[in-house]
């Protein structure tokens, strides 16, 4: 079962382009440009690996929703500007039962640790756990 979940995450099966739920959940946004640099691709790979390893059940239950979005596409501009972003960015946005949103910008962390996979996964896991705790 876990293997199937991992494959589905890798294929982006749970990747959403919109917010379709009002239940408490954590939106993980990764905004990227049309032309992506090696670091940008590495960050996505590390983020997916973190989710596969530690949060596959949460992804399946849509407690965590992954959004991989091209910030250069006009339809993503509103969301991109909402978080006051400028370039490729990783944002963890917790939405509690009252609809209150708490965003955590992990961009600086992600670019700094992109090539240290262990540090990246450990740091992102801690951040996701912290954001998930806001949903309770």
């Amino acid at each position, binding site marked *: 079962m876990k293997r199937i979940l991992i494959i589905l995450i890798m294929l982006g099966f749970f990747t959403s382009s919109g917010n379709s739920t009002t239940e408490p959940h954590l939106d993980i946004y990764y905004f990227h440009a049309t032309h992506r*640099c090696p*670091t940008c691709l590495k960050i996505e790979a590390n983020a997916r690996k973190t989710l596969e390893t530690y949060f596959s059940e949460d992804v399946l239950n849509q407690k965590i929703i992954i959004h991989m979005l091209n910030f250069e596409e006009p339809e993503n501009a509103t969301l991109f500007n909402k978080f006051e972003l400028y370039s490729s960015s990783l944002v963890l946005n917790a939405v509690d039962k009252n609809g209150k949103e708490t965003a955590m910008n992990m961009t600086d962390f992600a670019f700094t640790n992109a*090539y240290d996979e262990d540090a990246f996964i450990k740091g992102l896991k801690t951040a996701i756990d912290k954001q998930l705790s806001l949903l309770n």
Partner: protein
Amino acid sequence: MKKAYFILSVFVAIAMLSCNNTNTKEPKTSGSDSLNTKKAVVYYFHGDRRCKTCIAVGEIAEKSVKENFKGNTEVAFKEVNTDLKENAAIAEKFQVSGSSLALQFNNNGKEVIEDITEFAFMYALTNPDTLKNTIVGKIKKHL
């Protein structure tokens, strides 16, 4: 009347400044034929919106050239914005579509291009000295 002359003078001054700004724009990158005759050129390609790593790659590459080959007219650093239409030709020549770092060498008339993008992005933030030393070492080999 004096007031009218003053306003006219202000308009003339603004117009002159505007013309001056247009003339001081950087030459188009696609017309960088003079760079092809140099022994080594470090080309740094990027888009309008750059990530942290991309900015670091550009800064290290430029610094590597300026600090180690100051006054050497055979070596140059060239920054190219791939989002500008005028740079489409050079981006195509180097076969790049986004952020990239490439070294162009002129070996007795034979042009050699070395793409070190993967390496550059891997070390730009974690070990900038490794990237700098690599760039400098590769250039020195061709001088």
